[in-house]
């Protein structure tokens, strides 16, 4: 039996917009094991980002339970959630979200700073992460001195550097052209093959086809959740 990392049971998420209630998620149950490669799909507004935020412990569900590595997330306070995000989760964003004035290396060091890793150790690990995304010759570059694809690689290196249980990527190729997007997907495939657990949100069919499992959301409900029989590998 592979280890279950994410165990979501009947969660819902309701937003109040004035007097109106927005049901972003209604009764979603998902379970994800170690070393899975999942694509989360669905039309705009179907609740993909909402689900990702909950999985990433940035947000908590309105109802239902969420067990992360067996820990009930609902019972944690702000600081405990921050700690889980820091140690267990690697985020990759559509807009990269790098600190504009910090070098690539410094950006990658950031999560290690928050987990209290010593300086020399931090630099070693950040360099290794940067190497694993093929940017060892761009360490001192600032984000505005890097291409979009390179920035996303730096962001992925930052997600990797803490050796998290899971990597969450919300539309990681959304701001990139097809070729660069493919490079990034190749990187994810490598990471998956070397044992990482990955969830990628996308609304592009071609991107989703790289994953091993595809979950489709519609109107806050899981529409389908199945193994991708036609996984496209590089």
């Amino acid at each position, binding site marked *: 039996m592979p280890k279950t990392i994410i165990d979501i049971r009947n969660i819902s998420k309701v937003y109040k917009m004035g007097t109106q209630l927005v049901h972003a998620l209604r009764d979603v149950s998902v379970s994800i094991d170690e070393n899975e490669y999942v694509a989360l799909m669905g039309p705009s507004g179907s609740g993909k980002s909402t689900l990702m935020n909950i999985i990433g412990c940035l947000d908590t569900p309105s109802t239902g339970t969420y067990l992360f590595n067996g820990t009930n997330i609902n019972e944690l306070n702000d600081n405990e959630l921050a700690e889980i995000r*820091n140690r267990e989760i690697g985020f990759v964003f559509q807009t990269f979200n790098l600190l504009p004035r910090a070098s690539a290396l410094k950006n990658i060091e950031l999560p290690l700073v928050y987990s209290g890793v010593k300086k020399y150790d931090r630099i070693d690990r950040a360099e290794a992460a940067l190497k694993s995304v093929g940017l060892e010759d761009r360490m001192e570059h600032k984000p505005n001195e890097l291409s979009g694809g390179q920035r996303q690689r730096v962001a992925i290196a930052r997600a990797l550097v803490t050796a998290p249980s899971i990597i969450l990527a919300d539309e990681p190729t959304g701001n990139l052209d097809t070729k660069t997007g493919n490079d990034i997907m190749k990187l994810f495939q490598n990471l998956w093959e070397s044992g990482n657990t990955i969830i990628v949100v996308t609304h592009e069919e071609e991107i989703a086809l790289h994953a091993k499992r595809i979950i489709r959301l519609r109107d806050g409900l899981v529409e389908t959740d199945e193994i991708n029989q036609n996984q496209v590998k590089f």
Partner: protein
Amino acid sequence: MNITESVRMAIASIFTHKLRSFLTLLSVAIGVFAIMGSGSLVSSVDETVETEMANLGENSFKITRMPSVQTSRSSRRQYNKRERIDYKQYTQLKKSIGDMAFVSVESSQGSMIVKYLEFQTDPDVTLQGTNEVYFNINDRDVPVGRAITEADVEFNRNVAVIGNDVKNKLFKLSNPIGKEIKIGNQSFEVIGLLDEKGAILGQSQDNQVIIPISKFNKYYSNWWESLDVKVKAYNKESFAYVLDETIGALRSLRGDKPWEDNSFEIETNESITEQFSGLTGYLSYFGLLAGFFALAAAGVGITNIMLVAIKERTREIGLRKALGARRFWITMQFLVETMTITLIGGLIGIILGYLMSTILGLAMGLTVTIPINWIIISLTVTTLLGLISGLYPAYKAAGLDPIEALRYE
């Protein structure tokens, strides 16, 4: 905690918002400048007063017609009615307390010219008439030649002890002892050279000529001028008694009625300190008040600037929280940033304040000190200012919801 990064970030944000930062730095600098400037000026005054006191010597007090520091016009009119202290009062006073204390009499004229052959000084020499006790009471030595003696005063001799400045002007390297100098139309034989003392309150203590009081009164004094009398008790124990006796004797000599106040001033070390502490009290009070208001204004400004900065950097804060920054880290980051800004402002203020107090102090002839304690106070105050004015913005930043923050455009 990555303080260096926060400090670097603070400096970077100072440069990206030049005008805003300039105004903040300016208000902090002004506040610190006021505190630091007045504070160190006060320290200099205090230091000077201490030197001044040492000048008066141990177990000594001074009797004058007017107080040396006068605070208001009305009191001045009061003092002006006072009868002068004349030579006769001095001799009688000496007669009544001479067996328990040294008594000197002093009178002086500034702006005198002293001549020797074809040489002459600038018109800035102080001519001092006094008696043989002067040297003891004022703690001055005559290392070359001899001092004025009782006989010199009694027989009205034309003898003079000269200060080092005068000697250098008139005699250069040659020996002045036994030479004839001229002051006005009177000639004096130089009998001694005064030890070197430097300047106090901007006045050289070496640019003077000392002659017997009898001679002085005859040729250089105006009839209306009052004499200063200094009294030095033989020992510490008798000081209070001598003081009492002197006041009693002088009151009866000057005919002060029992219900009247003394018609003269007694200055002791304590009373001099008191006079100055009145002055420095005002100064430090004013400076601290001005500084406080400037800093309060600066604090409000900094809080606003940081709130704007946090708004602008909402996404960054969201990112940091997503990457696992606890509330504490975010709070610290912004506190360090505000404290960096206030400290830079504070340092500017300290430098400016120090320059001002030094320039003013030199102009006023004070002993200028490096006011370590005021530097420490200023640094503490600015650090606290950064802490206080940064607390609310930092708290707000730490409380941001990471998802909202990440979505912020």
